[in-house]
């Protein structure tokens, strides 16, 4: 990322001065970076919204980028903040049905690619890990997860809720948790 990173800083500096062409190029490249970033950290059905939210945040908060400092840590901090937002959103919608593209065999790579999220799950209690893995990453319903694990449906919901809350806290408490 070395040269690209410096180039992004220069592009953002130009954008802060109102250079549309530089800004368009920066946003296009940042979008690709964000897609890779969130693919490793979120279930497939959440990536789209996370990328969009982050692009809007980059736009609204572009004045907080200090041109004397490297661009990527700034971008990564904004992306991480929105990642935590998404984890909290997943918690709020514990029982929501997931999009159809989740847990369909053809899309297996899409649901198993959230590698960072899976690594973070290891820090939770086994029952919480299992509930989140089944419902949020593999797309099973709460009822199906209950049948598979032997946990009651209420317990599945509680474990998802508490587990995701703890995940958000873990990510927030470790600025470089990646």
């Amino acid at each position: 990322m070395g040269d690209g990173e410096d180039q992004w800083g220069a592009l953002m500096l130009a954008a802060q001065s109102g250079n549309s062409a530089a800004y368009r190029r920066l946003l296009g490249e940042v979008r690709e970076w964000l897609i890779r970033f969130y693919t490793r950290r979120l279930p497939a059905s959440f990536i789209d919204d996370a990328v969009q939210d982050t692009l809007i945040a980059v736009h609204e908060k572009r004045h907080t980028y200090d041109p004397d400092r490297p661009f990527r840590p700034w971008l990564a901090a904004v992306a991480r903040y929105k990642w935590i937002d998404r984890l909290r959103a997943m918690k709020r919608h514990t029982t929501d049905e997931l999009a159809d593209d989740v847990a369909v065999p053809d899309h297996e790579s899409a649901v198993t690619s959230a590698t960072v999220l899976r690594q973070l799950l290891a820090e939770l209690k086994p029952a919480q890990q299992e509930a989140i893995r089944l419902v949020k990453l593999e797309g099973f319903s709460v009822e199906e997860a209950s049948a598979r694990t032997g946990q009651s449906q209420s317990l599945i919901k509680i474990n998802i809720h508490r587990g995701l809350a703890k995940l958000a806290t873990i990510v927030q408490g470790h600025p470089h948790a990646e």
Partner: protein
Amino acid sequence: MPNDRLLDELVADLRPVRPRRVGRDLLLLGVIGAVELGLFLLFGAARHDIMIAMKLPSFWWKVGSLGALTVTAGITAVRSFDPSVSPQRGLRLLPALIGAALAIGWVIDAAGAGGAALWARLMWHHGIDCIFAMVTLSIPVIFALGLLMRRGAPTDRKGSALAVGVASAAWGALVFVFNCPHDDPFYIAVWYLAGCAIVSLIARLVLPRMTRW
């Protein structure tokens, strides 16, 4: 994935912006603080025996402790409005500063005559007035820091809000030092701590909700 239309809309909305600078924000806060303190003294709010009080160690203990707290918490807060800077390191310094301030106060207290009952020394009705004054005097700085925080991009909103609260509270108490006629370290430790805790708690509870981005 977000399509080109979103990018086009963001580009169409592009306006030149002035990059945020920590030094400029701190200068702005310094000016607001200086104006508040100047007006406070200009309107005759200084204690009538200020010249005598300035010869007492307790006066400079108050000014030094609250000044150190204001500066540390203020810098921590303003720096944390950058998304890539966490307020946690600065926040960890604050308990040590408060502990040192209380320890120095205890030494000053032990060196004095003492002897009166602690309850009598508290003078709670005066203490309540002190708290009210400190909270009121913290408003300009908490307002300014709150606006800077909202304009910035804090990624640890609770931590930033706490730093804002401590900085504003300590500043309000520091301005009040010039009016407060009490020099008893025990009285000061109890009531100033209570006033600062109230402002810090309010900021910690309210600001994270108002600065979501």
